[in-house]
């Protein structure tokens, strides 16, 4: 069988790129710089397409595909390093009512607004994704157990405090979310699917116990109260201080 030839840069001119360019333009991205068909130009086009295929079209957040990729990478990293990492699953409360009462355009506006509120309340290193209709997820690498609840609560409150002006006559629609979270099992190889399942279970609890709530799975650290922690590290009598 003849070996397929590796394409040389000059072959690029014979590629059918119209549709790719159209998609890139339509998404609001710029056409790559450089001589059309040149290697840097092609690289620019590929980068734009990669970006396009990892984002959710409506909100601009990471889509389910890139979320799954990032989660697998994080689960693997945590298994080796033991660094704490938190996964939050979030769901807009009573979203169907928004669509039913105000129409789908208002629904889309709510989704975009929630997306912005989520992205604005976490660190740049955290990955915020839209993983389903009104479902979002946030991966927080290197998130100490003691901070997990505070971060999740900040996210919840940020959405609660951001009314969406998409009701009748530009009136406000009140939007809340429920949040479930689980830390990656440290030092143990696990699967991303199991991690999602554990966070989803907590989300289910948050929904079942009244919505607009945060519910995190208990972790080793959460079993130790602040009082106990302080008692563990207070200098006992008769123990000399030592220099390191």
């Amino acid at each position: 069988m003849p070996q397929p030839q590796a394409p040389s840069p000059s072959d690029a001119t014979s590629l059918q790129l119209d549709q790719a360019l159209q998609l890139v333009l339509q998404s609001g991205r710029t056409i790559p710089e450089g001589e059309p068909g040149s290697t840097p130009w092609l690289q620019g086009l590929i980068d734009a397409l990669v970006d396009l295929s990892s984002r959710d079209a409506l909100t601009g957040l990471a889509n389910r595909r890139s979320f799954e990729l990032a989660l697998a990478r994080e689960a693997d990293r945590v298994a080796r390093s033991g660094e704490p990492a938190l996964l939050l699953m979030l769901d807009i409360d009573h979203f169907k009512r928004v669509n039913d009462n105000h129409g789908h355009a208002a629904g889309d506006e709510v989704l975009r607004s929630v997306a912005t509120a989520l992205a604005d309340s976490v660190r740049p290193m955290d990955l915020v994704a839209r993983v389903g209709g009104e479902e979002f997820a946030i991966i927080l690498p290197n998130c100490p157990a003691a901070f997990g609840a505070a971060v999740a609560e900040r996210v919840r409150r940020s959405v609660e405090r951001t009314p969406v002006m998409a009701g009748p006559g530009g009136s406000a629609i009140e939007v809340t979310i429920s949040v479930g979270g689980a830390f990656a099992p440290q030092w143990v190889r696990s699967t991303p699917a199991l991690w999602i399942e554990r966070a989803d279970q907590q989300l289910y609890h948050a929904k079942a116990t009244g919505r607009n709530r945060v519910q995190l799975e208990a972790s080793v650290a959460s079993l130790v109260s602040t009082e106990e922690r302080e008692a563990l590290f207070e200098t006992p009598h008769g123990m000399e201080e030592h220099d390191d």
Partner: protein
Amino acid sequence: MTEAPARRPRIMAVTSGKGGVGKTIVSANLAAGLVRLGERVLVLDADLGLANLDVVLNLFPKITLHDVFTGARTLDEAILPAPGGFSVLLAGSGMVEYSRMTPELRERLQEVVAEVASRFDRVLLDTGAGISDVVLYTVSLADEVLVVATPEPTSITDAYATIKVLATTQARRGLRLLVNQTRRAGEARGVHAQLQQVLDRFVTPSLDAPLQLDLLGEVPADAAVREAVQRRELLLEALPGAQASQALLAAAQRLQDSRER
């Protein structure tokens, strides 16, 4: 049914709240120390997630419990000889990539542990770190528990949490502690006293009987440990004169003495 006479503890789980505290190295060298004291010892590498006893001991072939459960190998084939004179049974990460115990898996693991306990004087269960279902279940199969910690604050906190969970969910009232990688003599006593004091204050009041933490040993931070790991040799064999080796031998002796009582 009449109660069997209290048997001497055979099965000891070695666990830690936090990973990376040297739990596996402690298990392997305690086992080698017990062999020197005349015991027949088996170490079951039950760290289903990140099993690494085979790496520490440079074991080959790597027949695992997973192979036994799938019927590919017999239990006898999976019991491997290790340097140091003890035997090893590797759980194999293939078994619980899922990090979850099915009822079937629980039953089979229990059968295997009971079987090897009848053939050896002592079985050490090298469990994973943390308090996952798998770890807690494996620990529940043991007669006694050794918690390994370092003097580092996160390790102490996680060890405390683990002890608390074992006291409340498995009704453990006596646990052993080994402090690894200490920087000065007597540091382990300080860690032990602090843990015992906080347990007395916060955990014991909710229990029917006081929770006793017994300090099994103190192993100093020692460059020899790293060297043995790099050479992929057992510390007690490669560098028997090292401080850490002597400390681990002393811990093995203490373990044996306490059993004779």
